């Protein structure tokens, strides 16, 4: 039966091939849309995992999340270093990582942060960052840079390479900071998240990029405003270590007081390397249940207009925004599948007239109308099954080809092994729809063979 149907289809291989192609394209589209959606969600969720709270200048939570975690867009005007110290000193906070943004390296976002970033950042279900080559910022001072796997692969960077960054986030920029080069100290192992596309520099280094611009506006005679110029880098580094120790012993109240008297310029002058303003803070909590209390405290902080964003909530908000587009795409994919099914029904139905003689011959050698009915359904099953299989092959090929592009442009990883239970269910639905659709020509052929008997004349 199966062999007979196969032979029959092979006899009409051109039309059958087109039908299979239509089905396979629709299958690839349906699964592709789902995988793209899942890939985007996983990638986003993975990038934000391990962060309990993101604190940034007041703004839209989705915008803050996109800017800080994915390096897309920017946050509002910077938050003060005092706010960071206040946050880091809160009793419920386990760790706090300062983040500076706004520069790019050949289109890839440059993040200013300290070594604690590499210690606390988690991705893909709790994995910490590891190095593929070199070291994190150790001993290299302010001009150290750690780069994501993709940045390294794209430009062929390795530890020791000297790079120059540009201001702003565009891919093409003429405002190069070529007077403040960085030396790459380490290359991160691939994570499949936005980190792969980032360039990390020290807070001191990030500030030094802007020192030349800021200095004339502040105080041209203040030597502290130009840390990269006259001072030895080792000195600055030692200062930083010393300050960290000092922070650890500081208590919360002191910071509040300090902040009340706050004079940011003065603070910067006092510590030398502390950034004037930062763009965001990643916060990890000792106990996650305290997250709402801390969020409220941040939002109510009078001196600095801040937002505390829960990554999971912001992601949910983001999916709420993209949901409509997702639904539209999914609807389109199913519509294409429906068209593919109609194509199959058309193909099977159109052939019935020319095959009447064939069915009469089969009946004359003992095939019952039921058997001929089954023949049509079997043909549809073969077309659908081959279509499904080819669709998967097509999708795998497409994934293989587009994965580097998607991950380079959007930090998305589709993953080649993402064949799950839901996809199986989708394929089953399509297969059953194919069988169901084939009942239309099959019923027709059943009636036709009954009426024609053995004596169809051409």
């Amino acid at each position, binding site marked *: 039966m199966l062999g*007979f149907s196969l*032979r*029959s289809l*092979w*006899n009409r291989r051109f039309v059958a091939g087109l039908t299979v192609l239509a089905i396979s394209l629709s299958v690839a589209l349906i699964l592709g849309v789902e995988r793209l959606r899942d890939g985007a969600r996983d990638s986003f969720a993975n990038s934000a995992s391990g962060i309990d709270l993101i604190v940034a200048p007041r703004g839209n939570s989705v915008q803050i999340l996109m800017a800080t975690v994915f390096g897309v867009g920017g946050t509002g005007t910077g938050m003060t270093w005092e706010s960071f110290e206040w946050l880091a000193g809160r009793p419920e906070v386990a760790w706090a990582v300062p983040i500076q943004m706004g520069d790019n390296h050949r289109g890839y976002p440059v993040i200013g942060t300290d070594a604690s970033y590499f210690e606390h950042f988690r991705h893909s279900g709790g994995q910490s960052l590891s190095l593929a080559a070199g070291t994190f910022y150790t001993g290299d001072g302010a001009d150290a840079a750690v780069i994501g796997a993709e940045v390294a692969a794209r430009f062929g960077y390795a530890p020791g390479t000297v790079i120059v960054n540009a201001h702003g986030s565009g891919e093409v920029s003429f405002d190069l900071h070529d007077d403040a080069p960085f030396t790459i100290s380490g290359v991160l192992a691939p994570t499949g998240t936005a980190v792969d596309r980032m360039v990390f520099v020290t807070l001191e280094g990030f500030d030094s990029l802007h020192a030349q611009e800021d200095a004339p506006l502040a105080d041209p005679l203040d030597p502290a405003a130009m840390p990269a110029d006259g001072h030895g880098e080792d000195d600055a580094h030692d200062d930083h270590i010393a300050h960290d120790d000092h922070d650890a012993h500081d208590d919360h109240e002191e910071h509040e007081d300090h902040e009340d008297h706050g004079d940011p310029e003065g603070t910067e002058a006092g510590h030398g390397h502390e950034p004037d303003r930062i763009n965001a803070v990643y916060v990890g909590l000792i106990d996650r249940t305290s997250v709402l209390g801390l969020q409220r405290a941040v939002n109510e902080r009078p001196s600095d207009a801040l937002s505390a964003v829960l990554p999971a909530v912001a992601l949910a908000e983001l999916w709420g925004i993209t949901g409509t587009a997702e639904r539209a795409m999914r609807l389109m994919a199913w519509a294409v599948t429906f068209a593919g099914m109609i194509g199959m029904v058309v193909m099977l139905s159109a052939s019935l007239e020319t095959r009447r*003689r*064939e069915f009469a*011959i*089969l*009946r*004359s*050698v*003992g*095939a*019952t*109308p*039921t*058997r001929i009915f089954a023949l049509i359904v079997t043909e549809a099953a073969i077309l659908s099954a081959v279509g499904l299989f080819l669709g998967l092959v097509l999708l795998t090929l497409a994934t293989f080809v587009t994965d580097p592009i998607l991950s380079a442009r959007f930090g998305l990883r589709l993953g080649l092994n993402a064949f799950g239970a839901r996809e199986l269910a989708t394929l089953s639905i399509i297969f059953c729809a194919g069988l169901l659709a084939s009942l239309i020509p099959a019923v027709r052929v059943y009636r036709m063979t009954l009426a024609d*008997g*053995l*004596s169809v004349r*051409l």
Partner: protein
Amino acid sequence: MHPLRIERLVYRWPGAERNTLEIGALSLASGESLFLFGPSGCGKSTLLSAIAGVVEVPKGAIRVADQDVGAVHGGARDRFRVDHIGMIFQVFNLIPWLSAIENVLLPCTYSRHRRVRAGDNPEGTARRLLSELGLADPSLASKPANELSVGQQQRVAAARALIGKPDLILADEPTSALDEAAKAAFVDLLARECAEAGTALLFVSHDRSLEQHFDRNVDFLALNGGAA
């Protein structure tokens, strides 16, 4: 056992004004060949359809291999047909995209009875039948049916009707597409093969030049009271 016995058969197409078939009696013995002649459109094909159980016939009127065709229904009738009857049509007897040998073997795929009777090696039997019918060339046997000449196709159809030794072969003007020389050779071969296999042959045609090849000749118009 009679391969075919017809008694008091009356048949009218649904909606027709008068009876198409009114046949008092007609029977065939095993291995006997009967030539039934008459003009086109007089009901010969309807008679073959009635014997093959394609149209509904009254009970008791037609017996094939001693079994009442009118008493068998639905799919059972299709199976009954292939078990006991081989059929040859005017033209387009074959599934065009199957090879000659596969076409010959079709009854064996749908009927256990025919498969068993085709011997231990049905394919060998099919090849033997083809070569006896003048298609000995193995390359012909594996060719798709639509690449064969009309004469070759009719011989393949004959081999298919013969395989598994059915009780009765119904041939409906199988020579109408053949030239004179091929016609005589085909009928001669078919009659001889039937006789050897012990299969009764009911051969229907308007062409009386074929009479000499058969055991018995019957004028359909004389046999059938209905169409006159």
